[in-house]
């Protein structure tokens, strides 16, 4: 694991959980798995603090504990910490599939790490009451939403138990327990009652969201390449893939044509139904190779090649990065080397039709930045003189991807740092605005007059307002940038996952 991955995890933990969790996380990252005592020794924190921090890490799934002969050891999971960046996208997904209430529920679970169904529902109910009193939502409606989330596998049972059972539970029951609605209503009123799901905790199924993001990338790539209909076909194919294949398999098991036809008929895409054969052939013949025809029985058997798809996507991403960083001529050279596998300098300038001097400059720049690699080829028995040696350029995609992932970590770290800096340097003003807001809403409740309210609003000078707006825009822009960088990071991580 890399320096910037460590820094990024550290800064994320600091932002969301504070300095103590950060220092424990750092410690685990640096030294690998460790027991409680050692963590205390190296961090120099008091034992209760370390315990608390570990609890937080375990609760959110950022660390796991393992029983070894040296006692219980804690492992840090940096990949999981980085998923914090994707929480907004997860919530957006839940909103898209299950509606606003579901989004709120998911947010509650994400905030808590894991939670019982009754608590989630109650908390969401409270929040809904606060925000939109005009919209009536009932407990039973929320319960339905919760069940929908579970059915869509956005939530899953948390196997985190108080006892130290080793190994994952063989079969996790995913049925929503019967909730005692009356008891829940009682709790709402402030009484204590048993809603009937004590110790049945739920957490967010990150795996499922990763799959969704992955599928989203594939669908949008096909949409961009061909058209909307083909994109929708890809989505249907992915649904069919889940029915018969482990979700992270390299290629799906064959999907028969009849089933595809059935699935397509159910959705409202008349053109797709009409030209289904042709669209399948298009996807199959496209150079992106997302879909492969594996047999002819039953009108054709098709298999989705996720592994190949992500290699294509990673290539495209890297090519794009090269283009933006070094210009389109450099991207031309990069693609040329890609298609020729191993190629000499002479050939590069001839085939790319770039003036010799420029071609050399670009090739060696790419070499220097590690986008290209060089292979020396000596004739057997020939002298070691450089003129007798062939210098062949090639690309090691795996290495380039790893380098770019590092680049993403760095960019994310920098963006977060800058965002923190921006908000810290304008802290006074942001706080002031917050105070004014609370004051206004308080006074409103007490029935203050318009004049009084106006007076309070005027506590912010115009220049301050202007400045504040600027800072808020800055922070928003940086936050958006974080999400975008994370998209790239996710795609490249997916590539590594498959290769």
């Amino acid at each position, binding site marked *: 694991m890399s320096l910037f991955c460590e820094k990024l995890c550290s800064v994320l933990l600091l932002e969301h959980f504070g300095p103590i969790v950060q220092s424990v996380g750092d410690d685990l990252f640096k030294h690998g798995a460790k027991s409680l005592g050692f963590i205390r020794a190296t961090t120099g924190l008091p034992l209760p603090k370390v315990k608390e921090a570990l609890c937080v890490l375990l609760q959110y799934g950022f660390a796991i504990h393992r029983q070894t002969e040296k006692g219980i050891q804690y492992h840090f999971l940096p990949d999981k910490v980085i998923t914090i960046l994707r929480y907004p996208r997860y919530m957006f997904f839940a909103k898209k599939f299950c509606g606003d209430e579901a989004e709120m529920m998911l947010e509650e679970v994400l905030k808590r790490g894991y939670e019982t169904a009754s608590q989630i529902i109650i908390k969401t109910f409270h929040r809904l009451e606060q925000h939109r009193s005009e919209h009536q939502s009932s407990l039973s409606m929320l319960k339905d939403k919760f069940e929908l989330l579970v059915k869509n596998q956005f939530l899953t049972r948390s196997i985190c138990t108080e006892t130290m059972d080793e190994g994952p539970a063989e079969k996790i029951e995913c049925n929503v327990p019967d909730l005692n609605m009356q008891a829940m209503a009682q709790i709402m009123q402030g009484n204590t009652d048993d809603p009937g799901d004590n110790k049945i905790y739920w957490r967010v199924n990150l795996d499922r969201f990763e799959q969704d993001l992955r599928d989203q990338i594939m669908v949008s790539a096909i949409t961009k390449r061909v058209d909307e209909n083909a994109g929708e076909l890809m989505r249907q194919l992915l649904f069919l893939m889940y029915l018969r294949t482990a979700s992270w398999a390299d290629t799906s098991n064959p999907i028969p044509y009849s089933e595809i036809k059935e699935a397509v008929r159910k959705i409202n895409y008349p053109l797709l139904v009409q030209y289904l054969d042709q669209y399948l052939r298009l996807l199959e013949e496209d150079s992106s190779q997302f879909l492969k025809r594996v047999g002819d029985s039953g009108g054709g058997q098709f298999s989705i090649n996720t592994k190949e798809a992500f290699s294509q996507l990673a290539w495209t991403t890297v090519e794009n990065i090269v283009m933006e960083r070094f210009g389109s001529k450099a991207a031309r050279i990069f693609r040329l080397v890609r298609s020729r596998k191993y190629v000499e300098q002479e050939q590069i300038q001839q*085939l790319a039709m770039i003036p010799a001097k420029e071609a050399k400059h670009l090739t060696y720049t790419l070499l220097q930045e590690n986008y290209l690699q060089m292979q020396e080829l000596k004739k057997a028995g020939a002298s070691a003189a450089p003129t007798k040696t062939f210098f062949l350029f090639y690309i090691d995609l795996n290495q380039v991807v790893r380098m770019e992932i590092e680049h993403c970590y760095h960019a994310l770290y920098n963006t977060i740092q800058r965002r923190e800096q921006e908000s810290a340097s304008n802290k006074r003003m942001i706080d002031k605005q917050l105070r004014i807001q609370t004051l206004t809403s308080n006074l409103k409740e007490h029935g203050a007059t318009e004049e009084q309210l106006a007076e309070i609003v005027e506590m912010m000078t115009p220049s301050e307002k202007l400045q504040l707006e600027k800072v808020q825009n800055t922070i928003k822009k940086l936050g958006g940038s974080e999400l975008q960088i994370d998209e790239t990071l996710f795609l490249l991580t997916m590539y590594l996952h498959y290769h």
Partner: protein
Amino acid sequence: MEIDPGPSEEHNVNASTEDSPEIIEQKIIALAHTKTKGISDKDILSEMPDVQPVQRALVINKLLSQGLLDLYKQDKILLYRLKDPNKVKTAKGADNEEKIVYTIIEEAGNKGIWIRDIRFKSNLMPTQLNKILKSLETKKFIKAVKSVAASKKKVYMLYNLEPDRSVTGGAWYQDQDFEAEFVDVLNQQCYRFLEQKRKETKDCRGGPIAARNITFATSREVWKFISDLGISKVKLSVDDLEMILNTLIYDGKVEKTLSNDGTYLYRAVEPLLEPPGLIKAPCGVCPVRKNCSDFGDVSPINCQYITEWLA
């Protein structure tokens, strides 16, 4: 290359000289014409039995010195062969060294040969060789051509030859300079043509496959389009244009497929992805990222690039 008449022959010059040397000369040349593989002494003897060996030797020596005949040795028999008339012409008035250099250059054909290689092959001194080359050049037997592969490198070839593409670089070179702008313009125009075809599919009603097939264009079609545009002063061949189309493939804008009849079809394609989010951020394209750290002049806190981007 004097031919010794041989000890066995008698020196009898005066006897039976009915034919003058000129006539014998004509006869031998005529004989050599009939046998392209070469004639031996025996052949001459059987054809012209009345010619005295001494006289024969004289005539042949004359012909050899004039460069009309070549002397070969095959299976220990001497053979005379008629020289190519062209070669005869050039060899006129040239000395032996010039002839050697000339043959070396001739062998190189229209690819030409570098002066250093001539020196190695001929074993001549550089100063002497320079002199010879200059004299051959002034006589317009050879010419010097600048190669595009290395601008300082001159290659020599026969005067009447058209230099090879590898030397001149074909249509893309003007006076040994690569015409980058010309290539760029062609590259853009080819793409425009293919892109135009792709746009036409928007209102195609024959289904997706038909729509895709419309976007395909053969290199000949593109070639015709470019020729009709008249942007090129030089006459371009279809092969030249395929080179341009290949650069478009390397630009990721065009795809190539093999059609049923073995020709290549080209079509414009959309990339799979939007530009990745990484490069939309200032850190994605940062030129000083390697120096970037929490402290020092380059740090995210006081980064000029981020400040400009935020502004």
